[in-house]
């Protein structure tokens, strides 16, 4: 199980610290939490629909999120993830369906629910005219928290977000990664029960993403309930105990990353490239060698239980791909299988 889980990472050759890898044992982490704290549903959603005029952004979805769970929405841009998040965060009204957050209806008790949430929006909305500490301070005040509490909290958060050296710097002058970390720190100022993150690492360079992931892992360790959207499958695999795959406002699949890969994919994938004009041409030949293939503009994917073996038979049949890559299946493959499209177009 460990090997399987880890190998899904090898596609990107992501380097992760050992303690971080422990979290990739999703099933184990899942079981452990299940037996202790995960019995209570903090969020319950059924038949949730949101329409903007004729356009249906969210089309009757159902899901629930348990306490201390890290729950993800995976899907391409425009899938309805952010809309769903905003409805749960009690900042957008639904068209129909039932939503309960912390036992309350966001439409009725919005401010009361928001008092217990920390929200990291897709687009940073820090006050760029103020400094790092000032941003944390005023945000704590919006929750009506007392001065003394906020001042102590700021010290804790600056350390957590690794922004101590930047405490008196105007936010305008921070890098993208720092702003993201500050936004996360800001969301934590009120010690929320649920932390909601909308595309937390979109637009960040790989190093900044890894720092951010590490911070989010620490929060997970402390038992906070995480709700995040992403269109990066590696992010979903690393951070989510359980996730739903969304496309065009609907839920395509639900489960742990491992369950989804097992259910919708073969064990391994072989990627072969024959050159862009030849890929489509050789597709029928590949189809003969493998029961399920996916032809993309730049490569052909062969879903198989043994990728090395599949490559051998391609060569034996007299075909010579320019490049080939044998790897374990990932959530990207799950998404491709479910929708026939890539996550990032």
């Amino acid at each position, binding site marked *: 199980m460990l090997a399987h889980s880890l190998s899904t990472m090898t596609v990107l050759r992501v380097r992760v610290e050992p303690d971080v890898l422990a979290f990739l044992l999703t099933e184990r982490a899942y079981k452990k939490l299940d037996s202790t704290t995960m019995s209570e549903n903090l969020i319950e959603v059924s038949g949730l629909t949101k329409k903007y005029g004729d356009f249906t952004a969210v089309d009757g979805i159902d899901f629930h999120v348990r306490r201390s769970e890290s729950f993800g929405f995976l899907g391409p841009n425009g899938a309805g993830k952010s809309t769903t998040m905003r409805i749960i965060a009690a*900042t957008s009204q639904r068209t129909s369906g039932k939503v309960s957050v912390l036992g309350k209806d966001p439409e009725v008790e919005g401010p*009361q629910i928001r008092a217990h949430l920390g*929200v990291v*929006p897709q*687009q940073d*909305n820090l006050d760029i005219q103020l400094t790092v500490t000032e941003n944390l301070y*005023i945000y704590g*005040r919006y*929750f009506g928290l007392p001065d003394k509490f906020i001042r102590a909290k700021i010290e804790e958060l600056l350390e957590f977000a690794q922004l101590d050296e930047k405490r008196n710097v105007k936010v305008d002058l921070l890098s993208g990664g720092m702003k993201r970390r500050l936004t996360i720190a800001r969301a934590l100022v009120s010690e929320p029960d649920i932390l909601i993150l909308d595309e937390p690492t979109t637009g960040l360079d790989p190093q900044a993403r890894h720092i951010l992931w590490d911070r989010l892992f620490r929060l997970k360790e402390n038992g906070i309930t995480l709700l995040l959207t992403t269109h990066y499958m590696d992010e979903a695999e690393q951070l989510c105990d359980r996730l739903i795959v969304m496309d065009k406002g609907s839920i395509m699949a639900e489960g742990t990353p491992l369950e989804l890969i097992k259910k919708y994919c073969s064990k391994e994938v072989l990627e072969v490239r024959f050159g862009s004009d030849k890929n489509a041409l050789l597709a029928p030949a590949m189809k003969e060698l493998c029961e399920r293939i996916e032809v993309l503009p730049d490569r052909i994917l062969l879903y198989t239980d043994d990728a090395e073996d599949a490559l051998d038979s391609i060569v034996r049949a007299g075909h010579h791909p320019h490049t080939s890559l044998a790897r374990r299946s990932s959530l990207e493959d799950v998404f491709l299988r479910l929708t026939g499209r890539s996550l990032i177009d």
Partner: protein
Amino acid sequence: MSTVHSNRKIPRFGARYIFEARIRTMTKFVWIILAVTILNPLLYLISIGVGVGSLISHNLGPHGMDGVSYLTFLAPALLAASAIQAAQDEVTFPTFQGFKWGRIFYGINATPQSGSNIAGGVFLAAMARTVLGVAVYSTLLYLFGAMNSPHSYLAIPIAIFSGAAFGAVMLAFAAYTENEDKFFTIVGRFVVGPMFLFSGTFFPITNMPLAVQVFGWVSPLWHSIELGRYATYGHKISMTMVVIHFTYLLAMLVFGLFFAFRQYSRRLEK
């Protein structure tokens, strides 16, 4: 599903926290604000008040304008105009900043704060800036000898009231505005500019043709100036007109805030 949460208290009168943050942001621009607050009135007082004033007293005598000196005539008008300008600046820019440029209102709205609280906080901070402006301006007017009528101090609350009335309407307008470029063009060229010129600031609007006077009637500045002149030196208008002027400004304040609060909430919910 059980609820094991302690219900955290929702902050009462939440607008004060937005007010706090706005003041904090304004202090970053304190030198610019002070420079504008002091230099602008100085330039007006020297050029128009003293320059044009001497021309008027030379031709019409020291009490040639509505029975008083030109500076006395001018004082309530300048004070009200500056209040209106300050209020407008401090409601429009933060609104565009909050909804569009930096989207900070969406961050505030993710806390227990509502759209109405945010609108209220922005408005209160604009009022603080307006009060500061009026305080500085009236001090300068005093130093120039323009506050010499028995009730000249009454021009101060009237100016602040006018700033609040116009500020409330502009707060609503800014919240409805998606394209701020158009907003500044329209408001700057066709509202604030003409308002300053056609509201009887520098001469009674009755000196103008009736068709042009209409501009003055809809202008909050004209209503404010008439009230100010009536209160400070006894400018002759009927009691009915006093009530109309006051009611007009009060209506702007009430409706402006109503629509601003509503649109702030609606826009955040989109």
